[in-house]
């Protein structure tokens, strides 16, 4: 009952936003090139969806994300593990990890363009550079924070080698893994949008490209429409992927986040 009421309030709020926006558009305070009607935005989205541009662009963006984010996660996890386990790795790679973590990944765009040219690789390089470091830091923290008693208990129960790592050490780092994955996801998403806006390539137009061309064509309805799509996608991914993981952690670990 309470949840229903809350949702109703949220819906009413957005209906209100819609009408205020439309009212401001009609008042002609700003040029309609700068502030289009919300109706135009939805009309654009409708047409883009009917033509298929929207879905193609979303799929292109997603493919890049999956490849870049996926390989970034794996590399980051491996790097974090090395940093946590070997002092020599921590003194060398660990410093690089911390340093690059502070660098906004869009800074890799110029280098990426010169190295890889206008290719998919250029895009993925930027996404990977956005993902790896925060994942590595989270995994290193996770491995360092495994209570030693888990290993001792598991060893007396007959867990050794692969079994010990896979059934005890890995799940023991889960809270850190999940927060690392979530943070890396946010970085990957931002990196890719930056890359798509800056790098024009012919192997596929992603959502970032639609934004970019929206600006070039002075099509503000397109710009705002795509921004809306990006927001909704972000929310959907969080709901579908990360919320269930966090719910599992809360249920088992009893952590309330």
């Amino acid at each position, binding site marked *: 009952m309470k949840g229903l009421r809350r949702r109703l309030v949220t819906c009413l709020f957005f209906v209100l936003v819609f009408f205020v926006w439309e009212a401001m558009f009609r008042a002609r305070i700003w040029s309609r090139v700068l502030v289009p009607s919300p109706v135009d935005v939805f009309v654009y989205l409708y047409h883009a969806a009917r033509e298929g541009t929207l879905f193609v662009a979303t799929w292109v963006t997603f493919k890049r994300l999956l490849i870049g984010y996926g390989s970034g996660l794996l590399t980051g996890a491996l790097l974090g593990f090395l940093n946590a386990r070997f002092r020599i790795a921590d003194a060398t790679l660990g410093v690089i990890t911390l340093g690059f973590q502070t660098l906004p990944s869009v800074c890799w765009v110029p280098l990426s363009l010169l190295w890889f040219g206008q290719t998919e690789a250029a895009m993925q390089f930027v996404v990977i550079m956005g993902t790896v470091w925060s994942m590595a830091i989270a995994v290193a923290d996770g491995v360092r924070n495994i209570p030693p008693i888990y290993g001792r208990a598991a060893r007396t129960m007959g867990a050794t080698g692969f079994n010990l790592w896979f059934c005890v050490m890995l799940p023991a780092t889960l809270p850190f893994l999940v927060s690392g994955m979530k943070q890396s996801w946010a970085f990957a998403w931002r990196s890719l949008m930056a890359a798509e806006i800056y790098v024009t390539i012919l192997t596929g137009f992603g959502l970032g490209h639609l934004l970019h061309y929206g600006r070039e064509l002075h099509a503000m309805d397109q710009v705002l429409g795509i921004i809306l799509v990006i927001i909704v996608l972000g929310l959907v991914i969080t709901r579908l992927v990360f919320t269930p993981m966090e719910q599992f952690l809360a249920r*088992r*670990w*009893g952590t309330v986040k």
Partner: protein
Amino acid sequence: MTVPAGNSDQSAAKLSVQHVGKTFRANHGDVEALHDISLEIRDHEFICLVGPSGCGKSTLLNIIAGLEKPTSGQVQEDGTAIAGPGPDRMMMFQEHALFPWLTVHGNVMFGLNRRSQLTRKDRLAIARDHLDLVGLSQFAGAGIHQLSGGMKQRVALARALAPNPRVMLMDEPFASLDAMTREQLYGDLQRIWTERRKTIVFVTHNVREAVCLGDRVFVFDINPGRITAEFRIDLPRPRNMNDVGLARHAAEITQVLKTMAEAAGGNP
């Protein structure tokens, strides 16, 4: 409550601790944690080790578990030298050491899943029986964080007993519990030990606890860690913490510990 089915064999092991010494390397020089410890423990025997902190009693337990190697001497289990940890010797710790990513049932299954000779059906039955044994079957699906401290140690006990080890090594398992819960667990442990007849080595600070549980109580002294006295407790079981005979034994052992502490204080 009865002995769990499918796991009824009451095999227990003899332990023979032979001239075990353990020296730790530290920055300020070597520390001799254990000095020439020798102990013969019969099968089905309940042994308690008491002594001040840092006397090496937990180190001895870790050596028997195979988690640490002695610097000198060896420990034999039924005539075979112990080379590493093995599921024939289960350990319980002061912290419950239960895995938070598994449910109560999942934790009890952990050791069983590493026993290849059991079928899945056997494992499930054994896990259920052991949760019954510690009175927690209705919590099988619960998360670890939902349990009280006493319940957690009960699950840890079920987890350690389920793979049917021949030896149980218990490192102050009840030290962090409140007095009421602890007394309940003394009762549970005595009942389970009477049914399952494991060889148990139990480390504690608490002299009464040692007298309540053990067939024999060994007193450790510090610097270097060594055994200074042995007491045989011949009280009938089940024993009650508040029993007069038990208190008399405890007083005697406490006196030994006091004398030791005074000697250590006067001789820095």
